[in-house]
C-alpha cells in the first residue's frame, strides 16, 4: 500500500514538473511571438551576414564555397551571442524573475525550459535556414548535411553556455560586454569543431569524430549548465 502511494506521489510530482516545463516553454515562445524581434533578430542577423558578406568581400562562387562553412558558423555564433543578453534581462526588469526565484518549483526545470525556448528561437531556425545560406554562399552540396548536423548539435551548447553568462550579468547595468567576455572563450571549441565538421564533410573525410565531440559537449552542457545558471540567477538577483 505504502509503495503505491509513493509511486503515485512521485508520478504526480513528475507530472507537475512536466507541466511546469511546458508552461514556461509556452510562455517564452509566446513572448517571442508577440514581440517578434526576439523571434527574428538572430535570423535576420544570420541572413544579413550572408547577404553582406558576398557584397562586401567578394561575390566569386569559388571563393565563397571555400569560406562558407566558417562564415555560416561565425554568423551562427554571433547571432546566438547577441541574443543571449535578453534571455533573462526583461524578466529581471519587470519583476518576473523575482517571482520565478520565489517559486517552490525546481529552478533547474524553469531554466532548462527557458534555454530550450531560446534555442527554438535562435539555434533551431538558424539550423533550418542554414541550407539556404549554404546555397547563397555556394557551399558544395556534400557539405550541407554536415552543416546542418553540426549546427543542430552545436547551437544548443551555445545557448546553454550563453545562458550562464546571461545569468551572471543580469543584475548589472553593463551586461553586454561582460557577457561576451565571459562566454566567448567557452564558445571557441564549439566553433572550431563545428567548422571542422563542415570542412570534413565537404572534403569527404569521416565526420563521426566531430559529431561525437559536439555531442559530448552538448551532454556536458545539458547536465552542468542548468545548475550553474540557477546558482548564478540567485546570486545576481540577491545582489
Amino acid at each position, binding site marked *: 500500500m505504502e509503495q503505491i502511494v509513493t509511486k503515485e506521489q512521485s508520478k504526480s510530482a513528475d507530472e*507537475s514538473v512536466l*507541466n*511546469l516545463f511546458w*508552461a*514556461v516553454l509556452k*510562455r517564452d515562445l*509566446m*513572448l517571442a511571438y*508577440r*514581440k517578434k524581434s526576439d523571434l527574428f533578430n538572430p535570423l535576420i542577423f544570420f541572413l544579413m551576414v550572408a547577404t553582406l558578406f558576398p557584397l562586401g568581400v567578394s561575390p566569386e562562387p569559388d571563393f565563397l564555397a571555400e569560406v562558407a562553412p566558417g562564415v555560416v558558423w561565425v554568423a551562427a555564433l554571433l547571432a546566438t551571442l547577441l541574443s543571449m543578453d535578453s534571455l533573462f534581462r526583461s524578466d529581471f*526588469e*519587470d*519583476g*518576473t524573475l*523575482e*517571482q*520565478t*526565484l*520565489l*517559486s*517552490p*518549483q525546481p529552478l533547474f526545470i*524553469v531554466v532548462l525550459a527557458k534555454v530550450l525556448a531560446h534555442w527554438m528561437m535562435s539555434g533551431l531556425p538558424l539550423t533550418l535556414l542554414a541550407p539556404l545560406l549554404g546555397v547563397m554562399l555556394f557551399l558544395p552540396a556534400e557539405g550541407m548535411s554536415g552543416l546542418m548536423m553540426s549546427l543542430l548539435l552545436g547551437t544548443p551548447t551555445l545557448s546553454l553556455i550563453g545562458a550562464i553568462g546571461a545569468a551572471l550579468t543580469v543584475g548589472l547595468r553593463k551586461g553586454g560586454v561582460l557577457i561576451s567576455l565571459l562566454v566567448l572563450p567557452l564558445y571557441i571549441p564549439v566553433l572550431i569543431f563545428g567548422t571542422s565538421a563542415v570542412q570534413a564533410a565537404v572534403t569527404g573525410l569521416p565526420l563521426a569524430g566531430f559529431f561525437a565531440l559536439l555531442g559530448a559537449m552538448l551532454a556536458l552542457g545539458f547536465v552542468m549548465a542548468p545548475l550553474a545558471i540557477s546558482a548564478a540567477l540567485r546570486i545576481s*538577483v*540577491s*545582489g
Partner: protein
Amino acid sequence: MSTSLVQVENLFCERDERVLFEDLSFTASAGEVIQVEGQNGSGKTTLLRILSGLSNNFEGDIFWKGQPVADVRDDFFRELLYFGHHPGVKAVLTPEENLQWYAAMHPGVDGGLINGALDKVGLCGYEDSPCHTLSAGQNRRVSLARLYLSHAKLWILDEPFTAIDKKGVAEKEQLMLDHADRGGCVIFTTHHELAIGENIRRLNLDELAGT
C-alpha cells in the same frame, strides 16, 4: 497563543556604509497584519526583500515556523506570496496569460480561479488586452489578482496600493484583514493613509536606523 510564522533575530543591514537597521528582532504570527513604516529610503523594501529570501545582504537569523529559513526554503516558498515594487507583469501578455504563468509556477494555485480573480480586481473586459495597453493602476491590479488566487499563508506586500484608486485600496485593506482572520499573516508597507489603522501592528524603521 497564536503560532509564530516568521521570527527575525538581530537583523543587521547596511548599504553603502549607511546602516539601515541593526539589532532588529520581531515575530510575525498567524493572524497578524504588520505594517513596516519609515520614510523614503529607510529600508522598508530592503527588509521585505530580505524576509522573502530575495536578498542575502544581511547579518542575523530568520526562522520560518521555528526552523532556519535556509533549511526549509521550499516549504517557505510554498507558503509565500511576494508583491514587489516591480509587479512582475509581462507587458506583451494579457492579464489572463500573466496569471496562468503564475499559477504554473506555484503548484498550490488553482488556475481555474483566474477569471474570477480578474473580475474581483475590476479587470473584467480586459482579459484579452495586452498589459501594455492598460493603465498604470490596471497593471498593478493584474499582479494584485494573485491575492485572490494563492493559498499562501504569508503575504509580503511592498506598497501594494501604488496607483490603485480609493475603492480598490479599501477592498485590498479588507482583504488583508480577512486573510489574517483566516490564520494568515501579512507584512506590508505603504505610504497611504489606512482605514484599518487600529487592527494592524506597526514596525517603525526610522527609530531603528543606526547613525
